[in-house]
């Protein structure tokens, strides 16, 4: 299984990584080898295992709607590289994105 250069570019774009055109070929190769390694899982016999999205056999773990203490604004923002008026400063957003 070999990833195309386009697929590498697409993944890089989603991850907000800039990749030089000269790097594409090598990345397609190394990423493909990672995927091939994961392909090993296909050698397992899963005939008798039903598909699941969870590995822990739990469900409906929930809590009462009770308020607990929050952090102070100072503590909450202490990792921010730049903080103004107790808010994180982020650069101008170019694409008007969001969900």
């Amino acid at each position: 299984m070999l990833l195309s250069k386009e697929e590498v570019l697409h993944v890089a774009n989603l991850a907000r990584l800039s990749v030089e055109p000269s790097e594409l070929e090598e990345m397609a190769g190394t990423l493909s080898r990672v995927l091939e390694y994961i392909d090993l899982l296909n050698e397992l016999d899963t005939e008798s295992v039903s598909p699941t999205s969870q590995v822990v056999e739990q469900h409906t773990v929930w809590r009462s709607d009770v308020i607990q203490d929050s952090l102070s604004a100072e503590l909450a923002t202490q990792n921010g590289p730049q903080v103004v008026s107790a808010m994180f400063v982020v650069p101008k957003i170019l694409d008007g994105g969001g969900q």
Partner: protein
Amino acid sequence: MSDNYEVVIGLEVHVELKTASKLFCGCANLFGQDPNTHTCPVCLGMPGALPVLNRDAVALATRAALALSCTVHSFSKFDRKQYFYPDLPKAYQISQYDQPLATHGQVTIRTEAGPRAIGIERIHLEEDAGKLNHIGQRLGDATGSLVDLNRAGVPLIEIVSQPEMHSPEEARLYLTELRTVLSYLDISDLRMEEGSMRCDANVSLRPLSYTGSLADLPRVEIKNVNSFRNVQRGIEHEIIRQRELLEQGIRIVKETRGFDDAAGTTYSQRSKEAANDYRYFPEPDLPPLVLDAVWLEDQKNQMPSLPEELRHQLAAEGVLPRDVDVLVQDRALYGFWRQTVAIYPDVKLVTNWLLSDYSRHMNAKGLSFDNPGVSAPHLAELLALIEDGTLSGKMAKEVLESMFATGESPQVVVKRLGLSQITDHEAIRLIVSQIVEANPAVVADFLGGKEKALAFLVGQVMKATKGQAKPDLVNALLREVIASHV
């Protein structure tokens, strides 16, 4: 609209749930707090922090689903929706993807052509993102943004309609009815201006010759619209824009557009056709949600009467059809009406006063039925004063105006203004006699058959009593006094 195209509209409505704490952590779910005062490692997206689901959020979402006639699934699960944005600290939103809480619901809109059911595809639970405060006037001119994460992790339901609306008006009716139904559940503030209710509209034009699937039509999503009126305006503008392009033979590009309130137009935000690649995958930190029949029954038992039921009830109580809709549409108004009718059970009189003079004064003061200024017992008392003859309808209007101005009870206002109809027969009879004595020519005219002459005399008496006599009583007494004079 145009003859060549059918307008196809689908709406995605986000509703913030009114829980005490956030969806996956114990931070308070409050609007309008100082920035970043309600966050913790979970909603800040700190490594290693684990989310735990809020049971009440599931309960409120379930009641919304039941009220909208959805199938609530006994098994649903959470997924990660991945994208980068500064208001999303984890770089993913916990949402529900392929197995949502509920599907297959409906909202019945009442169009001029009669009622029509608009399908609801799904309702799912998810967490809200934080809030960006742009430095600069508009997103486009912003030099940067300030991030407040108080809202990050607040519980939301997303209600996705089927693409079954065909005009901006139908979209407005859908939103109005949806909000009315949800308002009776009391699960959200439903304030568009505060963002507790938000709406995105998907708009496409289907050429009538097109027979392919609706999903393949290029769709434009209008985002960040802050009022029902603007949803309608945004859709109106989008229909015109798309039709112009199509008629020039230009292909519509699948994109996200914002709505410019001042210009009344939409503008392109993101136009890459395959921009949405969210790479959903099952949220490993949250086990699936399994709701059993007992729990569902319990939620059903906590449901209030819903608008459709109330409409039937009001009609049966004798409220006119046009008033039924108005009363039910505003839950606070309906509650106020109920309260007033419980004290003063003349349904028609209460409805008339509430929907006309009362509403006018309330609106003029910028108040709403949540806190209307004049209480239901005071309104009921005022209406009782009309019934017992103390006040004429005209006087009652004056009293009500004064009640809104001062907050006083009707009795107090009546006393203060020296109002109240003179119902003492003897007192009026005396005045009537004086007027009859003073106007022999007019009395003669009346006796000669000129009925109009009596109206003049009634007017004179009303003037002498400063309008505080009951006109029908004056009329009767005049006839009596004149007859006894002959």
